[in-house]
């Protein structure tokens, strides 16, 4: 697999701290959601990305507002990073009018065009042809915006994945395809859903490069994305980045995940992206106790506020069940 060009980058301390903030915020948001589900306060299917945060942070960091993301079910954090308020996302999970879909759906089936966020259906892989369409408009306009499109390794077995990546390859579209390879598709382990080790290799069948990287290292993800994004902005077409990772929770909060061993989980927890990055920041004196505390407090406040806001927000009016079908 041809490696994409290593892109040198230098992040200022504030930027590194911002990355840290996002990692922690996304983790905290998902953890709170998990509790809210257990408490019966959130009734929707919740698919946390706990353990996978480095992927979202590394790929979304520094994206322009005009750039588009096409997230899947575990990528709530990407909505936050692209500018949706925590309050709004929490409202969405509570099915309140203050959410993105006015209560019509929970989870991530709604988007915000102005912020460059596409909200997919539940159908895995179905976001990828849309990503191709968005990318095609950037190409038509000759602007250097990009699309970042996410999918699990399981979703890479859908027909839509194939048709979309092939189209993107033929048209050399400015798209970065991010595979979150967390080893399982619901209960099905990688080896039962494909006969290859690296999803990245599939990129070759579409005429562009694929790389497999450590998805739990936010800087590695950032670096690979930088390279792929630069290539896309320069008009040199798509890249597939496969981020090896692991989800700590079950498929959804209702899944006890008996299909995997405690050892496996423990091994992956030892590769938690957050402590790894924390150590890095502390070793470089970017982060200290005070700064960490301040960030953690900010996060707690943000999430407490979001939950309170969502709890108190109005339910939709029943009649809204039949509006907004046609423009």
């Amino acid at each position, binding site marked *: 697999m041809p490696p994409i060009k290593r892109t040198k980058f230098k992040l200022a301390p504030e930027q590194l701290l911002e990355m840290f903030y996002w990692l922690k915020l996304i983790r905290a948001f998902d953890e709170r959601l998990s509790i809210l589900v257990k408490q019966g306060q959130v*009734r*929707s*299917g919740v698919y946390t990305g706990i353990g996978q945060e480095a992927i979202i942070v590394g790929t979304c960091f520094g994206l322009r507002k005009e750039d588009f993301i096409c997230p899947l079910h575990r990528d709530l954090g990407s909505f936050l990073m692209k500018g949706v308020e925590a309050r709004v996302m929490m409202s969405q999970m509570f*099915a*309140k009018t203050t959410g993105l*879909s006015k*209560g*019509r*759906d*929970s*989870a991530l*089936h709604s988007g915000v065009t102005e912020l460059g966020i596409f909200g997919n*259906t*539940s*159908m*895995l*892989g*179905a976001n990828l042809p849309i990503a191709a369409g968005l990318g095609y408009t950037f190409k038509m306009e000759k602007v250097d915006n990009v699309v970042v499109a996410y999918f699990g390794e*399981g*979703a890479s*077995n*859908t*027909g*839509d994945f194939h048709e979309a990546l092939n189209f993107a390859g033929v048209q050399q579209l400015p798209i970065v395809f991010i595979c979150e390879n967390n080893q399982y*598709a*619901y*209960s*099905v382990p990688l080896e*039962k*859903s*494909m006969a290859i080790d690296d999803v990245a290799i599939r990129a070759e069948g579409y005429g562009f490069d694929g790389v497999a990287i450590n998805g739990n290292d936010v800087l590695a993800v950032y670096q690979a994305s930088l390279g792929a994004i630069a290539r896309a902005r320069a008009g040199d077409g798509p890249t597939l980045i496969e981020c090896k990772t692991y989800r700590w929770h079950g498929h959804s909060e209702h899944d006890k995940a*008996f*299909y995997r061993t405690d050892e496996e989980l423990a091994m992956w927890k030892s590769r938690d992206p957050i402590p790894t990055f924390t150590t890095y920041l502390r070793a470089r004196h970017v982060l200290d106790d005070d700064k960490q505390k301040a960030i953690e407090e900010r996060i707690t406040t943000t999430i407490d506020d979001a939950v309170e806001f969502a709890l108190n927000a109005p*339910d*939709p*009016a*029943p*009649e*809204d*069940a*039949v509006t907004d*079908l046609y423009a």
Partner: protein
Amino acid sequence: MSKELSYLEAIREALAEEMRRDPKVFVLGEDVGPYGGAFGVTQGLYDEFGEMRVVDTPISESAIIGVSIGAALRGYRPVAEMQFADFISCGFDQIVNQAATLRYRYGGRASVPIVVRAPSGGNVGGGLYHSQNPEAWFIHRPGLKVVAPSTAWDAKGLLKAAIRDDNPVVFLEHKYLYRRAKGPVPEGDEIVPIGVAATRREGADATLLTYGAMVTPSLEAADRLAKEGVEVEVIDLRTLMPFDKAAIFASLDKTNRVLVVHEDVKTLGLGAELSAVIMEEKFDALDAPVLRVTYPDTHAPFSHVLEAFNLPNTDKITAALRTLVAY
């Protein structure tokens, strides 16, 4: 001899018994293996029948159905599980163009004995992509059969019938009923024949045609009317294609009034065909127009408030029955 089972357990028992009876029967789908299926329907089958007959597949609905068709051509009787009925849209072409037409285009020299199990329906807070009722698409397509049991008894007996049927059968299992509908189930090898409706309640004043999760609220509404001295005959269609015209017409001849109740949306839901057929063939027997209580023409929202607005329920059915008998 009979025993009490839930609707879900009855389906599982039908699968297990058919797999024991006929080595040509096998099941395939996402997470149906060791995990036992997203709803637990196939629990235990993997242990009993092994991985060749209880096949965990990649996320590839079109392949799941296509593989089933290929195996059916060689005399197997595959039972494909869609994780949710909603995802059947991703395997749509294989059902409507491949399976439905094969016998016809082979000049009658082959058949496609597959069953596509599809957990359908709402009232479980599933939102847009975990609540759909896709029956109408398949009823409309010649060459397919469509079945939708409402009781544990029928779930078992109809699934057996579907597996033994030489035609492609779309088998709609209502998610709301999985654990809520419990009841007697025959011990032995009893079949509920495809194409035969069941009269759940007799009455001479009006006929109510329904199926699936709508049977219970329909019976409740009939009970309410009974208190007002109006006897409603409630017919559970059980098979939607071919529907039991003889039973429908026999009841109508007695009552001269028909209400159709279904959870699918109104426009071109099955109620439309039932109404049209009655119109064509039984116009003179009608003392009132055939009325419909259905989901409105909208999508399935996640918010409980919104979903409740949409779902047909005892009140709405009662009101329609009153209109019907007062006509």
